[in-house]
């Protein structure tokens, strides 16, 4: 079996006086899409920035390893890191309206990426720019290349961002909530585009999102984060059919599902959605499982120590004492 493209091991990130990510581990294989799911403030974005070594000045990586193609990015020199960024790993930011330089033309900005990482002649570079614009579905690339970001709509700008991200055909794209700022219809187009480029170039995608619909449609595997920890990691299909961690179950229960309510004869808007009681803030200062204060299945043992990820099935890991015990019982009963 091939070693994974990206192997994150026990990564912990902290701000002065507060740790935000408590030793998370996950891996991404070449060509697959891993979705990192969780609510605001659970440490998804900071994890993405840590992988690129672009943390805000106050944040520190406390421990851990980020192996990318076998080399530890956390011990790479700034020069080596610059060669990786944009060339081997690209980042797509959340806010397309402000992620492009307002005073440079779109074409010049894409050309700059190519010039940074490859030696191409001027005409070859601008040919490549036009190809890229065409590839991401921007009509009339010849004309649009000479225009400024403010001439583009949000969806078009995010397409330009994607063009910049794939300009040097990276192995991994980190997309930090790439469609949160866009309309739902545009969202689907942009994610479809990202997905088709992934297949075309054989790239892997780390898709950071809080939208379970996005996960279900575009990801191969999902890792659910809660309060700076990964609580469940599984392939998307079995995960959606039967999530094990109580938090993941709560998330899926809180999502609007037309099929379920239609069967009960009601319109989906007339029915109250289930919710997870409490707020994520209750995880602060919790010595045991961070989800324990809100958990419906809580047992006294949960308060003792934060549970580690345990494998419950092939490629399926859960950090929950109760879920793991149930699994053992389940397996025993079946066996």
């Amino acid at each position: 079996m091939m070693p994974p493209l990206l192997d994150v091991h026990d990564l912990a990130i902290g701000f002065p006086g507060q740790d935000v990510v408590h030793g998370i581990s996950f891996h991404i294989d070449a060509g697959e899409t891993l979705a990192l799911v969780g609510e605001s403030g659970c440490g998804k974005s900071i994890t993405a920035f840590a992988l690129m070594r672009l943390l805000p000045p106050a944040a520190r990586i406390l421990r851990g390893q980020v192996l990318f193609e076998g080399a530890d990015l956390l011990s790479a020199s700034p020069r080596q890191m610059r060669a990786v960024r944009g060339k081997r790993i690209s980042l797509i930011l959340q806010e397309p309206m402000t992620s492009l330089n307002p005073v440079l033309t779109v074409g010049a900005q894409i050309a700059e990426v190519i010039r940074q990482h490859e030696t191409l002649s001027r005409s070859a570079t601008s040919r490549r720019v036009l190809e890229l614009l065409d590839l991401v579905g921007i009509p009339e690339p010849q004309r649009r290349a000479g225009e400024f970001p403010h001439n583009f709509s949000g969806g078009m700008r995010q397409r330009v961002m994607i063009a910049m991200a794939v300009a040097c055909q990276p192995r991994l794209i980190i997309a930090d909530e790439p469609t949160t700022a866009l309309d739902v219809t545009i969202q689907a187009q942009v994610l479809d585009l990202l997905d088709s480029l992934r297949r075309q170039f054989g790239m892997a995608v780390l898709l950071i999102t809080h939208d379970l619909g996005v996960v279900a449609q575009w990801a191969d595997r999902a890792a659910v984060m809660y309060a700076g920890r990964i609580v469940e990691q599984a392939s998307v299909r079995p995960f959606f059919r039967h999530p094990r961690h109580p938090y993941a179950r709560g998330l899926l229960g809180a999502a609007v599902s037309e099929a379920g309510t239609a069967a009960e004869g009601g319109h989906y808007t007339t029915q109250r959605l289930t919710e997870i009681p409490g707020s994520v803030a209750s995880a602060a200062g919790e010595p045991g499982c961070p989800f324990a204060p809100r958990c419906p299945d809580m047992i006294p043992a949960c308060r003792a120590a934060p549970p580690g990820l345990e494998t419950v099935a092939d490629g399926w890991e859960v950090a929950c004492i109760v879920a793991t015990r149930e699994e053992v019982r389940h397996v025993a009963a079946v066996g």
Partner: protein
Amino acid sequence: MSAVIHQEAPTALLRPARRRHRLVRAILRNPSFLIGLLILLAVIGVAACAGWLFPGDPQDMAGTPTLWPGEDPAFPLGTDSLGRDVASGLAYGARVSLLVGVSAAAIGLAIGTLIGAVSGYFGGWLDNALVRLTELFQTVPTFLLVIVIVAIGQPSAQVIALAIGLAAWPTVARLVRAQFRSLREAEFITAARSLGYGAPRIIFLEILPNAMAPIIVTASVMVANAILTEAGLSFLNMGDPNLVSWGSMIGDGRPLLRTAWFLTALPGGAIALTVLSLNLVGDGLNDVLNPRSGLA
């Protein structure tokens, strides 16, 4: 890479096209800017044509001393106490004033932009040290600093330009630093860093173009200030003795202020007009380039 291959791909396509047009229109709609620009162009024109309009040396004693303007058609603006042609002096003086003004502003801009950019982008102890240095320069009165530098060196046009530039950079440095401090937090700078760009590239190709508008406006005011400082130096007889400048003409005319006041009034008017035009241009550029003014 698949997709359509475009055969001709002129690089000109990647450059701005429409914006120029809009900029020109915004300028034309601004009358004070236009007036300033016309005066400035006239001064530049006179300075450029000085050698052709007045072939002789402006320091030559060409005619009878203290001729009033209009008294002798050969000297339309009269002559001074040594019989030098005032019109010729004004034309050659425009040359000196503009040259010293522009080069001093360029030196000040270069130093100020570099220090402000480095200090604002990197922050930390480097920023602290550079801000202290800037403040140190600001505590010394500009004019005194220029006099000291010129006194140490020789009073040549180059040294004077350098001295004025060295005294003027702190204003630019503070402005550029403030711009960089806010722009470095922008999303597109994070995006630029995520594409593997190094610090020099981000400073000069990503942030600096965004900070250009206030820098250009300041530059025009800096030229005006440099012209004033140079005139002040020449008035105090600390200017280049081999060149006629507006300041030295005022200085030479001072003893005759009661009898031949035009000797001070004419170069004084020239200075006032040039400085006014530069300030008008600066204000106009501010209106045009400032996105909040709603014109651009």
